[in-house]
């Protein structure tokens, strides 16, 4: 059914149709609207017998989800940014215990400086936690990925994180096709826990594993994730069967045939990129885009196939590893066998708008071979240079962020 909805509401509706049994929530912008909506549905009795638990922290939220999942309930929560870091220990734990929790991550930057706007720093920070991480390009994708997330999590007995760009998607009102409850029931079977706390069949879950078996446990976790690559495609195919549209999978190529330059990116920037690619194609540039829907497990083979014909690969990503460069770019480089010519464009940090104009510039430079290995898109070079000069001039220049803000403030006031 087509609806014009806020992204958060669409996600909440999708989650609700998956019949979660325990939803736990702690507010953090920009995730709040999702759990608010679910809370209202539970309160109204629409999700009975689902329990909605208002917890005291994200750490508790994931912990409640762990307890609920281990007890055989379909458990869901949502968070963002600092919240994800605050629950990080439990995030790792849920994966280690093999509990099929589903979590929405309304992607947001991580402080300091505190920032409530979108980038992917949070998701990247837990990329090694053992979760399946899916990225939504649009709110329709967010809906579709959540439906698949529950089925995936439970068939894999692994937690799944659906990453949705904070504000850009969560707060955007747009058209979404929401499936009916009956359609979702047919697609997402009842939860059959792999392990469950049951007095009739008691087990001990969460044993201490020493050097004699820990490496094996980790190796098996790796194998499980690699097998998840297949399962993700199986579920995506099933999704097409059930809903008649594409809505998942590993990678999503767009106009990559004969492309010299292929951009690799994740999340909502893909829409703007596709507009930019179309425009560049209109200008005769042979460019394409590959969207990564699945980030963990990393679809190395699928990605390599998608960019095999490209002369150069540019990764546009909303996070970076300080002191190294792109996070996604590192993974892409690894997936492409260490091939040179993978450029990194760090963009959209802390909510900085990514415009089609800027992306067009990237495409043009990439086609011209003038794109640098690492680009910070739309970086205010003047501010940075002033601060660098100040740092060089004085060992005690004060916090750079503060200085930069002051500079920008001065500059903003200046022309008036």
């Amino acid at each position, binding site marked *: 059914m087509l609806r014009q909805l806020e992204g958060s509401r669409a996600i909440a509706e999708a989650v609700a149709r998956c019949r979660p049994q325990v939803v736990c929530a702690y507010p953090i912008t920009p995730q709040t609207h999702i759990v608010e909506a679910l809370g209202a549905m539970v309160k109204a009795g629409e999700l009975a017998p689902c329990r909605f638990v208002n917890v005291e922290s994200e750490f508790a939220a994931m912990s409640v989800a762990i307890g609920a999942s281990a007890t*055989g309930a379909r458990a869901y929560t949502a968070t963002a940014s600092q919240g994800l870091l605050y629950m990080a220990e439990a995030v790792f734990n849920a994966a280690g215990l093999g509990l099929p929790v589903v979590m929405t991550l309304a992607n947001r930057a991580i402080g300091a400086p505190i920032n409530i706007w979108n980038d992917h720093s949070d998701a990247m920070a837990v990329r090694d936690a053992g979760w399946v991480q899916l990225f939504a390009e649009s709110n329709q994708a967010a809906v579709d990925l959540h439906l698949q997330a529950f089925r995936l999590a439970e068939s894999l007995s692994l937690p799944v994180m659906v990453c949705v760009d904070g504000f850009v998607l969560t707060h955007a009102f747009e058209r979404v096709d929401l499936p009916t409850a009956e359609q979702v029931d047919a697609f997402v079977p*009842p939860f059959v*826990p*792999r392990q*469950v706390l049951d007095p009739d069949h008691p087990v001990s879950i969460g044993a201490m594993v020493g050097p004699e078996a820990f490496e094996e446990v980790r190796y098996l976790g790796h194998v499980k994730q690699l097998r998840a690559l297949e399962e993700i495609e199986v579920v995506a195919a099933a999704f097409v069967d059930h809903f008649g549209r594409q809505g998942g999978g590993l990678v999503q190529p767009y106009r990559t045939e004969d492309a010299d330059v292929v951009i690799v990116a994740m999340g909502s920037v893909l829409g703007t990129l596709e507009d930019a690619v179309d425009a560049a194609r209109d200008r005769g540039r042979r460019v394409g885009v590959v969207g990564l829907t699945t980030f963990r497990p990393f679809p190395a083979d699928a990605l390599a196939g998608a960019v095999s014909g490209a002369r150069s690969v540019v990764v546009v990503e909303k996070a970076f590893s300080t002191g190294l460069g792109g996070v996604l770019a590192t993974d892409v480089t690894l997936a492409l066998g260490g091939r040179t010519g993978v450029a990194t464009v760090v963009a959209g940090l802390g909510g900085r708008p990514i415009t089609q104009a800027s992306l067009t510039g990237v495409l043009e430079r990439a086609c011209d071979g003038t794109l640098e290995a690492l680009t910070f898109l739309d970086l205010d070079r003047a501010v940075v240079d002033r601060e660098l000069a100040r740092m060089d001039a004085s060992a005690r220049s004060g916090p750079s962020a503060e200085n930069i803000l002051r500079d920008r403030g001065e500059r903003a006031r200046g022309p008036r």
Partner: protein
Amino acid sequence: MTGRPEAATEAATEAATAVAEQVTPDGAAPGEPFAVTLEVGSSLANHTGSWRVERPVYVHRLPPCNDACPAGEDAQGWLYRAEEGDYEGAWRHLVEENPFPAVMGRVCYRPCETACNRGELDEAVGINAVERFLGDEALRRGWRLPDPAEPSGRHVLVIGGGPAGLSAAYHLRRAGHQVTLREAQGALGGMMRYGIPLYRLPRDVLDDEVQRLVELGIEVELHHRVNDLAAELDERSFDATFLAVGAQLAKRAYVPAGDSARVLDALSLLSGAEQGTPPVLGRRVAVYGGGDTAIDAARTARRLGVTEPVVVYRRTRDRMPAHDVEVGEAVEEGIRLRWLSTVAGFEGGELVLEEMVLDEDGLPQPTGRTERLEADALVLALGEEADLSLLASLPDVEVRDDTVVVGSGAQTTHPGIFAGGDAVAGDRTVTTAVGHGKHAAGQIGAWLAGRDLVLPARHELATFDHLNTWYYADAPKQERPRLEAARRTSGFSEVVFGLAEDNALFEARRCLSCGNCFECDNCFGVCPDNAVAKLGPGNGYAFDLDYCKGCGICAAECPCGAIAMEPERR
């Protein structure tokens, strides 16, 4: 949202159950995460017993009551039965050692209670009161003593029908021996009858317990004073003889006295009262001596109409041999006590008392100071000695200090002649005599069988510091009610009453069960390693050394000290 949430939940539950039921042969459900999820109880494969350097062992320690009992009673053992309300079982356990619970419960001076560990906690267990309850209950219900064993074909002569002789006869008879008991008096009981006042031991109680004993098949010959033992043994052949003639000859002290002075001994006063021929005493009587007999004499005199009995004793009350309870009751009855005094003379209705002082050794020394005390009679209660003239014809029976010498086997220096009771050295109490009788019977049995009697080694004494008394609820002793003092002196009614059943039960349950497991489950409960198995009622517990780490909590928390830690031997 619409749909069928209940149906979905049910389906999920069914599916979960289906998975859980598909357990693999080794018990692991399919698909459970490797290593992270484990099947329950698997640590039983880890035998932590290897950590142990000390191991607990269940022990029996000797309860101080048992240790102290001259009659060798297993007081803790019969209290254990009584605690359960099994009075007959308790009584049967008791009479294994002593056939006179009703008498004991009245006349014993209770060394058991003196030794009782509970005395250090609050008050000693009223063992004697429970014993009396059991004894009275047995008489009331007509419980019979155990039948004798198969006839042994041996015949033993017991001389003296007092507590020692009767006890020996009892144990010998139970062992299947033929027993002939010769008693000089016209009734059995000895000092129980002629030395203990009625108000302490009603004679029907004595008669009933003696009769019950005699009915085991003891040949009793009353009025048979043995004057010449050799002659008697020549006259009729016995396989062994037990000599328990007691000590009835009153000791005399030289007291310068005028002809008119009325001086008599305590035993004749007591036996005269018993036989209904009390001596004439007058209004004012002094009793000279500090033992229980002196108190008995004074209290008897009080009941015979003496208005002002006074006990004269050379030393102080704390050094008086008489038992506190007796002295206390005497005081309640109006008997005066004069300490640090000796009788220096008695004439013209006046006693001359010399004041004494105690020297460094606590011995009384004369001071030369005297005073006078009006008295119509002086009763000497200075102890008794045995009349051993019957041994004159058997010179190989060694006699020393007016007592028969016996070895540890109760045998005199004449083979086959054993002796006990007041006729031999030792405490002269009924209980001791009963113990002598039992001991001698055992020795005689062994001697008749031509072997040494091997007594089991005595267990380590269960002292107070072996106990963990926190577990015992606070519970004061149940006192036996007593006759009001004002009504005591008008006759010979029994002063101390028995406990009602409820109170006797309560008192029995005050027993700490020192040194002997009473199945409180503490060891079973406090083991952090579940290494104690409970074997069921009456069967106690066993340590599971596969898992016992030897921490010792069981031993520390055993209320009664029935667990010891021993170094592990590997």
